[in-house]
């Protein structure tokens, strides 16, 4: 299909696809004859339609169907045809329609005047942005909270055109994973074929809540564990707290946060003793690094697990037919590269590369925006490292920092120090849908539409076992005066004489769709399931990307890239070591629970009622520890505590939770918002404040899993 035809289809797509053959009528009799209370809002009357869209509020990458009545979105369902949803949806994405009218929506461009932000027109906002960017020249940086959309390509191309290399991703699991994969010599991106595995060992990685394509992961578990039926996949969770995923896993192995790499390499030790070998390059170096640095004794000190427990995990993996190891940070960030690299090493030792239920090397998205930075180049920049240097005045703060779908003022570790560093930025621009902490301190706030109000794309979110591409077209015109960030930037770029090759973001998406055609693929659906195709089943007829995505479907490709460069040589960096102890004797285990938000979105109004009174109540929130730890440190249920680290402190109450390891304080992220609205505010404190950045052993990059704290 040519480009012209695709344009027509995308525009046609905005008219909506009626997915139900028979529209539902307003059906409940009670609804009809009880509309007799004129003083409360009435419900709309009429047929509804389902229009395909995409949710990017969390990493799950689910395709959704938006329920609209007379064109207005009112609910969001998981799209049963979308392979990352299969009808499931996260507790965040499910109220995305309501978020159109979140009290925190930025309703127009705002510029700073003294202590306040005042509304300005888009023309003035663009002029101001252009003026500041022109004056800044190459002294410009950008940070993006989105690594799957082409919007970030536009930002990186802009920054590059200005002569700067400073384009960053916000810290996230996929960022560490991307770097770890590269360190092992991997090309492209790593993919995990979860659906075809018969045993999944999740080390740290909270695969049903924060890690990767978590809704799809949960669906894979669901389908492989039919109620009352034959179990086709076992799941073992290694995590510092018996978290939500561990509650449904076949086994839970408590492991100290920050020691995920030690556990994985401890398992590797036993596998190697049992004769495992990768047959690939770097094995000898790996074996000797594992033997010297990750002996059972050392691993016990680092993880808290006995040699027998670790050996048992090795045995389980070795005896599974199609085992898959997924390692990462237990809270979706800060876990560094070693854990992921060690997990990948286990998969290689188990012979799981390019095998059903194993790992695959997937191609990166083709570059279409002129001068955009390849993913590899952005991954080489570290935002936390950069901001630490800015804070310490070892690096000059940029004249302009563009924050795209990112809330660094809230979500970076050692938050208060980072906010001070952000303060040094000459001119902070926040491209955001919501008045978040970063927007609140910005010099210019440019409202972006929510995904259902704009054209947006998504290429293969981290975790996915196959290439996939989904495009959302607007379900509704922006309800406030918001303009897609990439469109704003493309306009400003051409005003400044930078040619990025496109005039609108829609054209970028079209070009990307066309470029992807070269990979060859098909439209996924209930009868074209990527995991079945991966094992040679039900080969669907190939289709062009445009055809697939214009119907709201995910376009999927089984393309892989050459993985022969993978080497184990650098997979066992550092040495297993016990937590440092000393002045800060407790290990902090942050919890990432999506119902209270993500690093992008604070607790949405409809999610508040999911917060238990053992999690937050009366303005405070709770940290969790087991009774032995509590009594050791002289505290107990409901007691107020200050949790302090080297870099900050938070106030909380104690909730006794016997699912937390000895010597660990578990604390939920997502609370303590100072911006946003009454639904997110007045609830506890921000745990990111006490996350302490250290240098990851053997890598020398920022690392903040296993932050140490004390009860002050």
């Amino acid at each position, binding site marked *: 299909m040519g480009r012209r035809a695709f344009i027509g289809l995308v525009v046609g797509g905005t008219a909506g696809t009626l997915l139900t*053959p028979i529209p539902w*009528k307003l*059906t*409940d*009799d*009670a*609804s009809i*004859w*009880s509309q*007799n*209370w004129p003083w*409360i*809002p*009435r*419900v709309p*009357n009429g047929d509804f339609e389902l229009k395909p869209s995409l949710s990017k509020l969390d990493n799950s990458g689910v395709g959704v169907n938006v*329920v609209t*009545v007379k064109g*207005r979105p*009112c*609910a969001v369902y998981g799209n049963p045809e979308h392979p990352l949803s299969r*009808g*499931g*949806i*996260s*507790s965040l994405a*499910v*109220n995305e329609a*309501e978020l159109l*009218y979140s*009290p925190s929506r930025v309703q127009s461009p705002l510029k700073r005047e003294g202590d306040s932000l005042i509304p300005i027109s888009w023309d003035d906002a663009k002029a101001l942005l252009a003026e500041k960017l022109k004056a800044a020249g190459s002294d410009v940086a950008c940070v993006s909270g989105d690594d799957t959309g082409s919007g970030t390509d536009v930002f990186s191309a802009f920054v590059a055109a200005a002569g700067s290399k400073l384009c960053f991703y916000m810290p996230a699991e996929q960022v560490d994973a991307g770097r770890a994969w590269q360190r092992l010599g991997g090309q492209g991106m790593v993919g995990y074929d979860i659906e075809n595995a018969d045993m999944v060992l999740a080390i740290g990685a909270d695969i*049903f809540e924060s890690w990767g394509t978590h*809704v799809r992961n*949960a*669906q894979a*578990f*669901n389908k492989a*564990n039919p*109620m*009352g039926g034959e179990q086709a996949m076992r799941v073992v969770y290694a995590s510092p707290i*018996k978290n939500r995923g561990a*509650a*449904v896993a076949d086994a839970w192995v*408590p492991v100290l946060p920050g020691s995920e790499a030690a556990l994985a390499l401890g398992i590797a030790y036993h596998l190697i003793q049992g004769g495992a070998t990768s047959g690939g390059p770097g094995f000898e170096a790996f074996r000797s690094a594992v033997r010297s640095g990750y002996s059972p004794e050392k691993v016990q000190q680092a993880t808290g697990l006995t040699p027998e427990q670790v050996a048992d995990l090795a045995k389980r993996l070795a005896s599974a037919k199609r085992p898959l190891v997924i390692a990462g940070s237990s809270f979706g960030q800060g876990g560094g590269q070693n854990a992921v690299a060690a997990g990948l090493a286990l998969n290689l030792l188990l012979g799981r590369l390019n095998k059903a239920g194993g790992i695959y090397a997937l191609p990166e998205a083709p570059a279409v925006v002129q001068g955009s930075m390849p993913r590899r180049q952005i991954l080489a920049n570290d935002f936390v490292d950069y901001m630490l240097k800015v804070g310490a005045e070892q690096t000059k703060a940029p004249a302009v920092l563009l924050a795209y779908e990112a809330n660094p003022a809230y979500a970076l570790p050692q938050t208060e120090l980072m906010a001070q560093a952000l303060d040094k930025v000459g001119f902070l621009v926040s491209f955001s849908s919501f008045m978040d902490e970063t927007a609140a301190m910005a010099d210019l706030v440019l409202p972006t539409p929510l995904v259902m109000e704009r054209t947006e794309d998504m290429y293969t979110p981290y975790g996915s076992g196959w290439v996939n591409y989904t495009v959302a077209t607007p379900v509704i015109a922006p309800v406030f005066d918001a303009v897609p960030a990439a469109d704003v930037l493309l306009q400003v770029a051409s005003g400044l004489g930078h040619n990025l090759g496109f005039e609108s973001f829609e054209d970028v998406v079209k070009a990307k769709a066309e470029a992807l055609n070269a990979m060859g693929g098909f439209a996924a659906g209930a009868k074209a399931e990527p995991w079945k195709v991966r094992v040679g089943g039900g080969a669907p007829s190939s289709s062009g990307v445009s055809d697939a995505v214009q119907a709201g479907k995910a376009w999927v490709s089984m393309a892989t890239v050459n993985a022969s460069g993978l080497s184990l040589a650098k997979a066992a960096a550092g040495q297993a070591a016990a937590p440092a102890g000393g002045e800060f004797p407790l290990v902090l285990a942050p919890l990432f629970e999506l*119902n209270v938000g993500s690093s992008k979105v604070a607790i949405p*109004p*409809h999610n*508040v*009622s*999911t917060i238990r*009174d*053992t999690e*937050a*109540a009366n303005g405070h929130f709770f940290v969790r520890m*087991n009774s032995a730890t509590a009594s050791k440190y002289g505290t107990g249920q409901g007691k107020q505590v200050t949790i302090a680290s080297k870099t900050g402190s938070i106030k909380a109450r104690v909730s006794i939770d*016997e699912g937390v390891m*000895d010597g660990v304080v578990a604390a939920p992220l997502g609370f303590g918002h100072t911006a946003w*609205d*009454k*639904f997110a505010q007045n609830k506890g404190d921000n745990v990111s404040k006490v996350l302490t950045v250290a240098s990851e052993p053997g890598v020398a990059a920022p690392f903040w899993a296993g932050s140490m704290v004390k009860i002050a």
Partner: protein
Amino acid sequence: MSVQREFHTKWGMVIDLDKCTGCGACMVACQVENNIAPTPDASDMTRVLTWMLVYKLENKQKFPNYDVAYLPRPCMQCENPSCVPVCPVVATTKDEEGGIVSQIYPRCIGCRYCMAACPYHVRYFNWFDPQWPAGMEKTLTPFSSTRPRGVVEKCHFCHHRFMAAKEKARATGGEPMKLAEDAYIPACVEACPTGALIFGNLKDPTHQVAKLSHSKNAKRLLERLGGKPQVYYMSKRQWVLDMLDNDLGDGSHGGVTGGGNHG
């Protein structure tokens, strides 16, 4: 007085407690579908309405023998409901084929007898008129009418979806009284990412729920009370099954998400 009546179709849910992660997607899906207004403070029991509520069950053991399970609790749609006979104005009934316990808001006089009678705490009273943040009322769904203060409300198994499924069957030459398993699925069941909830006709042997409700691992909440819920729970863990004999509302199981506003 017993109001038990037999129906050909008995809609029921089977909830696998070994599959629920307690993520809360079902709770939020229900609120959106059924136009429940949000509230800024979950601990304000006078305002929190959670037709679907996920409880946290704990085995009371210390680390590392501790275990946890999450229990999603919709209305049990009891075969022999204790709420129905106490209503002085017949605002809650169990008289429709399918066996869903209705709640007819315009009839409700707010006496709250039904709330006191329900051992599962599934009923909520509107102490206040619902309030949406400015503009958010534009996202109300057409599926459930809004309820003013003074009225009791609860889960109705997404009754509008039942009506829609029957209508679709009629329009397409199907049998509205013999719906296929996937023709009618409530919002919470549809949303759950781990598939912990399944739904169907407990009397239709071709529906999974009919088979699973007879499993040796299936049990209902507080069976001894004789309400005969149409919601079954499954677990392979004995301690979890044992817990189902206990009152969820006594607080001793910890982690009760709101839901304390019953009389």
